[in-house]
């Protein structure tokens, strides 16, 4: 009986104490008419058998290929010590830190994580994380709507289309007006965004670098938003935040991001890590768990979950959000990653990723018929145009063992021939050469 410690003798003694004569008697409250119509599951397997089966299934996946897929999810180097530390079961077998004195490890780690993310973004306050970068954008919009008591959200079309779709679904039953401002050939149309802001606007939502990889300065836009008493929400890529002009210095009010790139495995889409930060003025609107510093009776420093009067377990239907759990272990992993790399290592990771992107740009645009979508500054991801539909080219390159990138036509009408190519510090020049050679052959 896997993981059940009871001996036959103990079961009999326990049933005696309870005052019933069989295990089945414990379930007499469930009437016969309600018993399962079927429970047709496979027989249990030994640990070895399950491992063998799953190892065979894992082998059906192909992970050894050269990949230039990004689109918001990036595979960066992770020092092995990160996994070793996060694998300490005192961290991973704990629950939400409801009993602070027995959870100082988790709570101090969250407090430190909040500090690290705030320093990375130059913001005042952070929460203990949200589910993912998309949920963080939705929650940020809800913060803005509550704070401003307005219901219009201006959204840059160069914001990840994946997140825009999440936002559509999650706001479908709410009284919110979303205005999409079209991108300008892969760049954010800042003039049109600014022009769209009016007295009914709760927030303007932008991304840096945007979905096309383009790096922008949104300072002027944030100033226009502020003049109109609207908030600026910015979604950023945390690795590149170590080198780019910070969202805090641009005047953003709420800064969010997908934290996966801070050393989390791609893991086929999750678990990931929603980063959420804001200015001090907005902290009471910030959803989810927040760790705060305090003292015990002897004046020793300690940490607790704080500002809980915002939360669902106290406020129920009136809570700032329904969010209960966060991604604590993922946040811990990102935090350990940041500590292990330090400011120098994180910036090296960012710059190396950008450097490889420039090498890729040079090699790819040397192929006849391949051009840059625009000449805007970019980070580690850029869009090229091809003489053929990009999805056909991706399929052809897959035959050669290369994931060439993300075909932008999947989400942007008119960009069927455009391909988004990403590099990280894990790519090599040799892989980029293979991509270029493959592309030449495919065209």
């Amino acid at each position, binding site marked *: 009986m896997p993981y059940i*410690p*009871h001996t036959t003798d103990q079961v009999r003694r326990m049933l005696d104490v*309870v005052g019933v004569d069989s295990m089945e008697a414990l379930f007499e*409250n*469930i009437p016969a008419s309600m018993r*399962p119509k079927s*429970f*047709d*599951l496979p027989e249990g397997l030994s*640990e070895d058998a*399950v*491992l063998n089966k799953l190892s065979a299934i894992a082998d059906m*996946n192909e992970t050894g290929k050269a990949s230039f897929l990004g689109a918001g*999810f990036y*595979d960066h*180097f992770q*020092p092995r010590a990160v*996994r070793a*530390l996060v694998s300490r*079961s*005192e961290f*991973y077998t704990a629950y*939400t830190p409801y009993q602070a004195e027995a*959870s*100082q490890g988790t709570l101090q*780690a969250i*407090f*430190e994580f909040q500090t*690290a993310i705030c*320093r990375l973004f130059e913001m005042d306050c952070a929460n203990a994380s949200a*589910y993912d970068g998309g949920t963080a954008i939705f929650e940020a919009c809800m913060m803005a709507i509550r704070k401003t008591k307005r219901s219009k959200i201006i959204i840059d079309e160069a914001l990840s289309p994946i997140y825009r779709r999440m936002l*559509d*679904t999650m706001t*479908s*039953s709410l*009284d919110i007006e979303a205005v999409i401002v079209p991108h300008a050939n892969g760049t954010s149309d800042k003039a049109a965004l600014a022009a769209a802001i009016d007295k009914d606007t709760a927030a303007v939502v932008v991304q840096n670098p945007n979905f096309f990889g383009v790096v922008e300065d949104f300072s002027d836009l944030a100033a226009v938003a502020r003049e109109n008493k609207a908030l600026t929400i910015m979604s950023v890529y945390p690795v590149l935040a*170590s080198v780019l*002009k910070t969202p805090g210095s641009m005047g953003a009010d709420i800064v969010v991001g997908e934290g996966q790139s801070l050393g989390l*495995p791609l893991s086929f*889409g*999750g678990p990931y890590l929603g980063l959420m930060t804001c200015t001090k003025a907005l902290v009471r609107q910030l959803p989810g768990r927040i760790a*705060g510093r305090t003292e*015990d009776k002897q004046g*020793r*420093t300690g940490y607790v979950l704080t500002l809980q009067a915002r939360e*669902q377990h106290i406020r129920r239907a009136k809570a700032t959000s329904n969010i*209960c759990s966060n*991604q*604590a*272990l993922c946040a811990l992993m990102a935090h*350990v990653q940041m*500590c*292990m*790399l330090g400011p120098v*290592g994180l910036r090296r990771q960012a710059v190396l990723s950008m450097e490889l992107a420039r090498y890729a740009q040079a090699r790819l645009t040397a192929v006849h018929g391949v051009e840059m979508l625009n000449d805007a500054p970019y*980070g580690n991801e850029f869009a090229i145009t091809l003489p053929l539909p990009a999805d056909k080219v991706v*399929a052809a390159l*897959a035959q050669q063992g290369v*994931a060439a990138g993300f075909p932008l036509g*999947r989400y942007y009408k008119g960009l069927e021939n455009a391909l988004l190519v990403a590099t990280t510090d894990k790519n090599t020049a040799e892989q980029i050469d293979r991509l270029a050679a493959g592309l030449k052959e495919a065209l």
Partner: protein
Amino acid sequence: MKTVFEKSVPGRTGCLPRRPVETADRMLPEALLRPEAPGLPELSELDVVRHFTELSGRNFGVDSNFYPLGSCTMKYNPKFTEEVAAMAGFAGLHPILAQLEGTREWVQGSLKVMHETEALLCEITGMSAYTLHPMAGAHGELTGALLIAAYHKKQGNKKTKVICPDSAHGTNPASAALAGYKVVNVESKDGVISPEALAEVLDDEVAALMMTCPNTLGLFEPHLEEIVKLLREKDALLYYDGANLNAILGKLRVGDVGFDVVHLNLHKTFGTPHGGGGPGSGPVGVSERLVDLLPISRVVKEDDGYHLRYDYPDSIGYIAPLYGNFGVVLKAYAYMLRLGREGLERVSEYAVLNANYLRKRLEGVLEIPFDRICMHEFVASAASQAKNGVHALDIAKALLDKGHHAPTVYFPLIVKECIMVEPTETESMETLDAFADDLIEILTRAESDPDSVTAAPVLLPVERLDETKAARGMVLTEDLAGKA
């Protein structure tokens, strides 16, 4: 203990990636760059390893401590599932490969895991189809509430309200509100939903009832059949909060008895670790009439393998960027394969046995408001101790000194000085006895020397922490310290 920032030594470096040839200012205009590196800690690898090893020692976890936290199902998390999630074939896979012609073939293993997990969850709960996308239980609730809204909209029904019993998890009303519903409370009678009380608040505007069964008092809802009938008459849907599924595996399938929407907490019932607050995973199952509304994408099996499909015109759309917390789903899948039919049924039997045994052992020392056969958890009350100045919270803190994590306290809100105990099936009789003995000792001391109980904990890294000071001072980062 110092923070990692206090331990930082300027100029020290940890584990560095290889050095780039270029510098950022040669690739981007200076106006787009930050002038200074972020103030992250500067430490050696050993500094970092020691820091986090020390932090881990200041935590309770299931591997070190009994964790009878009510409604949280803190059972043992099998170790082999960690090995599965770390397999390179799973951990290294970029999710978007599944969406592209040509690379879809590279992810067949992961799609197979998702497809088969959905099939297992359907059989376990009697639902018609599942989405694995919700990333936590409360996210599953929101997804469920959006599905309910989409169903009524499609039917042309005008529905504005969702009923939540007063014993519901706080996330239920919060999720319903987030989906745009007005939340209506229904009061419990004798710890359960009474059909009469329900009928009083049930009208044509009610979209759904959100229900937990067994409920948060650990009681099976005896009027379930009648409740289903009442709701059907108003074309209202029945939502099942799966937080307590651990009690009924193989004993009741919620689909069979008429629930339309179900969320499960994989990290609870299927033993995936909760990591100090997450990640979790909250798949949502639906009855036949809601299948077409499920979020996209969905995994389908065709002759040439597994595919993601997006062409469902009635779908509510995207509730996650990709396919949910795949790594957590994978661990739950491995857990289900390991236990199988008999093993899963045993989970509930032993969880219920343990809860009832502990309930009996505590009878007479703590007030048990609903002293009858319970399911996998039960509620006790420290109301009589509170009269002498020892509250549920004090008892909880005193248990920490004994090396046990505390039960859930002050939930559900409907029981005074509530202490909610969920031992789970993986705990031995010896552990339950030790917990009962320690609790009895604390309660005895609460009579003879109450100050020693209200002073607890004294054996942990910190004594009782000042929560009011934390909320007032709002020191939420190292940099706000002293500025408050």
